[in-house]
């Protein structure tokens, strides 16, 4: 069976190379049968990777400990679903997951475009398959998941495996890596289309439409993956941190920032035919940042709590990155005439300018995050001395950038295309601005002194108000015209232009998340050693330890504490934080207990039992507003889905030629 798996990977590798060659030669020599053959090779690669994946997963589920990978990352007593998730628990398996997802994307692209985008499809296929070949190289040679345990020349089987890292035995870890990878891997599709359009000098907008749609899908997966990771970190690590600016977290954030920038600036290309070079750069940057992120996590170049063991595959990534970036730069520079802007900018205060600033801010954040992540390495190379760049640096640099971005989120959508009059600015922003200033004053008067939190709350109201205003105005007009209620008007409005109003919903999700982030300024915690039957205080909560129990499952032994929380003498909640020691790894892991509410989470970690007095040591935390982060995500999800639904009214973005501008604006308005 193991031979079939390894053979399937090798065959897929060979067919991948064939697909690249057949597509390129077919396009060059104009041989349709070669192009078709290249596309069919994509399907064959998909089938072979399915076979290889099936064999690995089967070996994991059946605990076939002849496989070195199975023995290293699973054990007999793990539940079957964690055995399946061991697939991406180690280096070789997670690279196979890359291949698995990439082959699915390849298959979907080929099947979807049997009649569309024919001139550029050979190049799209070649780009997809070149990336696939790179990852298959890793799985076929330096990181094969089908290596067997051997003694001399005999394959041997160990009685039990080492088990999966206990921190990964949590439900979000079942879906976090595949979803994040769907986002990472998926961006190869927009990149392939962008490159294909560049090579073939595609006229028209159809390819932009396809690229943008794929970019929304992959952006959505990236957002979901990042948020799932944050949720895992919050619920598993025992201290409630959902984002610590760890290098691996940072490199997952970088492509998200550039793809967000792309999703905004691509509108300039669709509507005005502008920023074509920039959009190419953003698509390419996002794709290469995805690869760079994978390189960072696997090369061991920076120390991270999430990184895989250091290995030599980092060099493979480096070669791929250098070649890929060089080729892309060459292609862009060689086709600058094709990427020439079709329109001019009429006014500095306009929607167009807001996109420019939005891109500037997103890219500034991307650069700052990349710089902070790499600075320890750069500093050591230059000065020979190690430095640490931890959360305080990232927060000091990125919080002001994020707040400015939040401000633009409110301003940008209300600016008109081409130009905005002073009257228009006043009409749109007067009340939201006054409202937010009033709220900030009120909060300051109520005793909130944290400047960033105050500004965040003010901006959240400002942006929320402007978005609400847009919905209200549009829905009100439709409701009046169509004689329907306001809610139906909103649905109708959204359906008429799903992209615009879906985008507003995504913005609203981000606003809601920012409310949650601001809550971190008011976190409180205490660590106490407390006897059974005694209580301690944290904020308004009286927390009483009423019992400590222990027991065992097949996979781990556990100890849990029962803690009764009361507020002003009234029972509030019962929490059961737990400590576990996993039988195979002997690693102690906490399972925190969280009482989630909109205003704050009460979060309890059973940290240990004290050595001297044998008393439970409890870490208790209050995390205000943290639930808003997860609620914000759901709003973002709904917004993303709405963006993907076709609009009821087809928008045609005519590349309008500006014939002139009225000298007196009022005259036209009459």
């Amino acid at each position: 069976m193991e031979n079939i798996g390894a053979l399937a990977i090798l065959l897929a590798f060979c067919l991948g190379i064939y697909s690249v060659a057949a597509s390129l030669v077919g396009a060059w020599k104009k041989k349709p049968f070669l192009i078709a053959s290249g596309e069919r090779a994509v399907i064959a690669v998909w089938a072979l990777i399915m076979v290889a994946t099936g064999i690995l997963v089967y070996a994991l589920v059946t605990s076939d400990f002849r496989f070195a990978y199975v023995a290293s990352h699973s054990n007999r007593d793990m539940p079957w679903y964690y055995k399946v998730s061991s697939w991406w628990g180690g280096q070789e398996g997670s690279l196979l997951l890359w291949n698995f997802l990439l082959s699915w994307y390849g298959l979907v692209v080929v099947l979807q475009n049997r009649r569309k985008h024919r001139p550029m499809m050979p190049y799209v296929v070649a780009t997809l398959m070149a990336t696939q070949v790179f990852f298959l190289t890793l799985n076929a040679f330096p990181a094969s998941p089908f290596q067997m345990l051997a003694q001399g020349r005999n394959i041997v089987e160990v009685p039990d495996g080492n088990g999966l890292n206990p921190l990964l035995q949590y439900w979000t870890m079942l879906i976090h890596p595949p979803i994040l990878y769907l986002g990472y891997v998926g961006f190869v599709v927009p990149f392939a289309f962008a490159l294909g359009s560049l090579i073939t000098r595609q006229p028209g907008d159809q390819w932009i439409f396809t690229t943008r749609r794929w970019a929304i899908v992959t952006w959505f997966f990236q957002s979901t993956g990042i948020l799932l990771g944050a949720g895992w970190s919050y619920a598993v690590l025992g201290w409630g941190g959902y984002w610590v600016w760890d290098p691996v977290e940072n490199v997952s954030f970088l492509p998200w920032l550039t793809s967000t920038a792309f999703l905004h600036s691509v509108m300039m290309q669709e509507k005005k035919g502008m920023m074509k070079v920039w959009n190419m750069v953003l698509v390419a940057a996002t794709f290469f940042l995805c690869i760079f992120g994978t390189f960072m996590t696997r090369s061991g170049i920076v120390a991270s709590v999430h990184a895989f063991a250091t290995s030599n595959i980092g060099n493979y990534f480096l070669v791929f990155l250098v070649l890929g970036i060089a080729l892309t730069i060459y292609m862009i520079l060689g086709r600058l005439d094709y990427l020439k802007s079709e329109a001019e900018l009429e006014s500095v205060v306009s929607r167009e300018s807001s996109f420019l600033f939005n891109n500037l801010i997103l890219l500034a954040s991307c650069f700052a995050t990349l710089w902070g992540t790499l600075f320890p390495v750069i500093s050591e190379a230059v000065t020979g001395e190690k430095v640490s760049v931890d959360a305080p640096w990232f927060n000091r640099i990125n919080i002001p950038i994020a707040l400015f971005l939040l401000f633009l989120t409110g301003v940008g959508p209300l600016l008109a295309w081409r130009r905005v009059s002073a009257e228009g600015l006043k009409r749109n922003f007067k009340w939201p601005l006054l409202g937010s200033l009033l709220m900030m004053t009120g909060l300051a008067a109520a005793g909130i002194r944290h400047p960033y939190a105050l500004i965040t709350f003010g901006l959240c109201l400002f942006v929320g108000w402007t978005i609400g205003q847009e919905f209200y105005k549009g829905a009100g007009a439709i409701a009046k015209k169509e004689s329907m209620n306001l809610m139906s008007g909103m649905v109708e409005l959204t359906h008429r232009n799903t992209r615009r109003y879906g985008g507003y919903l995504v913005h609203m999700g981000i606003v809601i998340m920012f409310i949650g982030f601001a809550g971190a300024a008011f976190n409180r915690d205490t660590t106490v050693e407390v006897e059974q039957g005694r209580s301690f205080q944290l904020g308004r909560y009286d927390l009483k330890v009423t019992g400590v129990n222990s027991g065992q499952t097949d996979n781990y032994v556990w100890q849990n504490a029962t803690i009764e929380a009361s507020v002003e003498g009234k029972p509030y909640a019962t929490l059961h934080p737990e400590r576990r020691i996993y039988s195979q790894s002997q690693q102690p892991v906490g399972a925190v207990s969280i009482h989630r509410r909109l205003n704050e989470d009460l979060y309890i970690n059973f940290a240990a039992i004290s050595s001297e007095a044998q008393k439970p040591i409890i870490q208790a935390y209050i995390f205000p507003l943290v639930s808003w982060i997860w609620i914000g995500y759901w709003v973002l999800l709904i917004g993303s889905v709405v963006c993907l639904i076709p609009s009821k009214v087809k928008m045609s973005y005519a590349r309008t030629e500006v014939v002139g501008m009225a000298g007196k604006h009022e005259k036209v308005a009459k």
Partner: protein
Amino acid sequence: MKKWRNSFALLMMAGLCLAQTGDLVPPEVRRVGDRLACLCGSCKNTVATCQMLGCHYTAPARAKITAMHKAGADDEAIVADFVKREGKKALAAPPAEGFGIMAWLAPPFMALAGAGLIAWFIRRHRKPAPELNEGDVAKYQQAAERELSRFDE
């Protein structure tokens, strides 16, 4: 076999518990600890925010901060002592001196460079639309009204 293994795990748990004591963080330690990185290698927190009980770096670091405070050392002196012993990596953020200043200057510099690029782009691509005369305005207004009336039908 499994019974023996689990019993061993229970013993291990007891052993680990015995090896740990509570780390209560005095408020004054948080202030200094916020400037110092936890160098345990398992987290990216500061000495103030590391929540690992019995962390082999943070626990003694906190004890040292407390002791130095009691001995009358101010925040700067404590931080300087950590840097002297551990090097600059003891700081949670690079110092704003020497090459470390690059950490602080590069992001705003790049943002300014980006703003400059936008200014250049706007200057290069800005082309205010020409003024329309009365006749043109009337023509477009008529066209708009014609379109709108068709829409009403």
